[in-house]
């Protein structure tokens, strides 16, 4: 088997089951490229952490194979895989100082003492913890512990770094700050990162590519832009970002353009990434920010009469709930001030969107 040189890890038909009946990971085929930041995104129980544990060697693969640099990892124990791991609870050794924690992987590799000192200090400086080497983990704040865990996972220049919801325990502000710091570290050091999270915002902000998991299956792999703008199915559309979903039946197709008849009888023009047949059931996906209220005549392929149900102030934007096509949960996002004073509950409005922003998806 020859692989393109940039592939670092290759999952081939990997399956994992704990009870012999239900696969928590099913038919997994995935490549992680050298130097990329790949995020496994999915709800809890979707199998993303299990993938990480298999890659780290803590869970055996039930079927299939994982290869690192085209060599199977099947018989490589965790301590020889050379992967740095950042755990959700950090898993810092409480009986050792910060310095000893960070030095641990180097000591295991029998690195000379002077080199260890130098490398650990560099690593601590890199994560802004210079001078705290003598502290015990419990004497540090949550964010500082997180940095120690990061330094410990990076200091031995591992083949790649695995992170399992590393920011889950931090408060929001610190979390956003750490997201940026981790991203910067990745850019500076050029390391390969496999990152697990259930936070779609985190995934979109940090990743080069995102793999979206549900029920043990990969739903879509792509850049943040791809998974957001061109979701492969209704699950991805619903899980990544906010989404208006409409059920309907394909009435006609013309290249990528489709006309879909909703249950209410309304006809919507939309675009499909894959060819659709007439009469096929479909889900339409429309992002709230792509829905315009009172658009200028002729600007949009789809125009409907609607009524405002509710307007919620979000600071930078207003979230407008609309009633149309027999339902009252259609959401539009309007930049602050764009609607003027006309957006009042009960007011009748015209709404519209262009066909290229409305995607036809197969039902989940």
């Amino acid at each position, binding site marked *: 088997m020859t692989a393109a040189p940039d592939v670092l890890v290759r999952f081939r038909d990997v*399956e994992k089951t704990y009870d*012999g*009946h*239900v*696969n928590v990971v099913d038919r997994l085929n995935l490549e992680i490229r050298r130097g990329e930041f790949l995020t496994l995104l999915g709800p809890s129980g979707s199998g993303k952490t299990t993938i990480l544990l298999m890659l780290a060697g803590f869970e055996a693969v039930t079927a299939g194979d994982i290869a690192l640099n085209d060599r199977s990892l099947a018989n490589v124990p965790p301590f020889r895989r050379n992967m740095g791991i950042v755990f959700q609870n950090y898993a810092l050794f409480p009986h050792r100082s910060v310095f000893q924690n960070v030095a641990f992987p180097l000591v295991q590799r029998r690195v000379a003492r002077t080199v260890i000192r130098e490398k650990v200090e560099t690593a601590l400086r890199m994560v802004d913890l210079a001078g705290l080497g003598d502290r015990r983990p419990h004497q540090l704040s949550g964010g500082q512990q997180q940095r120690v865990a990061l330094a410990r996972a990076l200091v031995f220049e591992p083949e790649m770094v695995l992170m399992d919801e590393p920011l889950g325990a931090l408060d929001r502000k610190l979390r956003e700050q750490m997201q940026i710091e981790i991203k910067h570290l990745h850019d500076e050091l050029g390391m390969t990162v496999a990152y697990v999270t259930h936070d779609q915002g985190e995934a979109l902000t940090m990743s080069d590519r995102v793999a979206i998991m549900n029920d043990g299956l990969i739903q879509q792999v792509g850049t943040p832009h791809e998974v957001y703008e061109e979701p492969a199915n209704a699950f991805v559309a619903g899980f990544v970002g906010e989404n208006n979903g409409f059920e309907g039946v394909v009435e006609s197709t013309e290249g990528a353009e489709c006309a879909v008849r909703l249950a209410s009888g309304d006809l919507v023009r939309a675009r499909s990434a894959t060819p659709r047949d007439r009469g096929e059931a479909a889900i339409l996906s429309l992002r709230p920010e792509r829905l315009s209220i009172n658009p200028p005549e002729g600007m949009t392929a789809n125009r409907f009469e609607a009524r405002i149900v509710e307007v919620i102030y979000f600071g930078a934007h207003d979230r407008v709930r609309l009633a149309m096509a027999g339902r009252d949960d259609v959401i539009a996002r309007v930049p602050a001030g764009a609607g003027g004073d006309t957006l009042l509950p009960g007011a009748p409005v015209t709404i519209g969107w262009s066909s290229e922003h409305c995607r036809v998806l197969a039902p989940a």
Partner: protein
Amino acid sequence: MTAPAGSSLEVKLRRAQRRRSFTSFLLVAPLLLFILVVFAGPILSLLYFSIDDPKLVEVMPRTAKIVTAWDGAELPGEDAYAAVVEEIRTGYANRTVAAAAMRLNYEISGFRSMVMRTGRKIRRITGPPYKDALIGLDERWGDITYWRAIKASAGPYTTRYLLAAVDLERRWDGSVAKAPPERTIYVEYLQRTFWISFWVLACCIVIGYPMAYLIATSGRRTSRILLALVLLPFWTSLLVRTAAWVVLLQNKGIVNDFLLLAGIVDEPLTLIFNRTGVYIAMVHILLPFLVLPLYAVMRNVPPGQLRAAASLGARPVAAFLSVYLPQTLPGLGAGCILVFILSLGFYITPALIGGASDQMLSYLIAEFATRTGNWGMASAIAILLLLSVAALYPVYRGLVRGGTGFRFG
């Protein structure tokens, strides 16, 4: 999403799990093997020793065979006498007959010396008829009860030890009946063991419950100190505590000095080598085993509850009975059964502080095993004691989930 049962996936999964289980099991294996060989096996072997009866059949196999076939109604025939003569002769010559004689002595006391005397004189019997010759040596050979004793000892297995442990014996015709009065001592020991344990437990409850309550409801500092006062004797060697009581309880000991000085008594009380001393020392040793679990439960009863009950109109006694006591019952139950089980097995304290009529089952076991060397009887009584404890143990497990360790006396 699902793999069919029995698929190759399931097989692989099992293999992976088995590997991890196996390495974990390897860590447990040394101790498991050790406990099985050195502890569980020997304990189970007590069952075997309680029915094992090889002595006579080893030394006098032919006799054993003949008397086993004999119906026991009338004196056996010439062949039995011939076998006895021949086997006592060889047994006496190579000094193996003493073991068989010892075994026969369990059935009728005096049988041992009778066999040994027969052995000394066996040279005088030179030929048949052996029956008359043997009766000529010792006329008891013509008494059918001695032959029935041989039949009862013929082995290789016997129920006599197990039956004797509950004061029963098997008659020559196979029926089971109450043993003669001079041998019915074991049930008395069993009753006494339970009786002593019961009173020790009662004393522990009366003293221990208020103590645990006081520790649980005192302030932080006071309760720490009081708890240390309970833990100190708990950690002190059992022998040291027993020694202290031996010193204290003597006729000219400190307790009697105090009682005389205080004018409570006019002449020294006998406190040692009788039941009183045994009760005092055993309560002293077992009291912490009641107080500690009780305290652990009481500590978790919210202190405001009695006040709440009082504010709802309950009188103090009613409040205690309906609110406090039920919440402490698990701890009380666990402590009680622990104390009871522990006291059933007591040996050292009664042996040093009690008199002859204050010894418990453990004493019998030790006597039979180390002094008289009667393994069968020792095993049978051990089984009796073990069954007594085993009957209570499930109750204890039910009351406390998960194990806590305590030292045994």
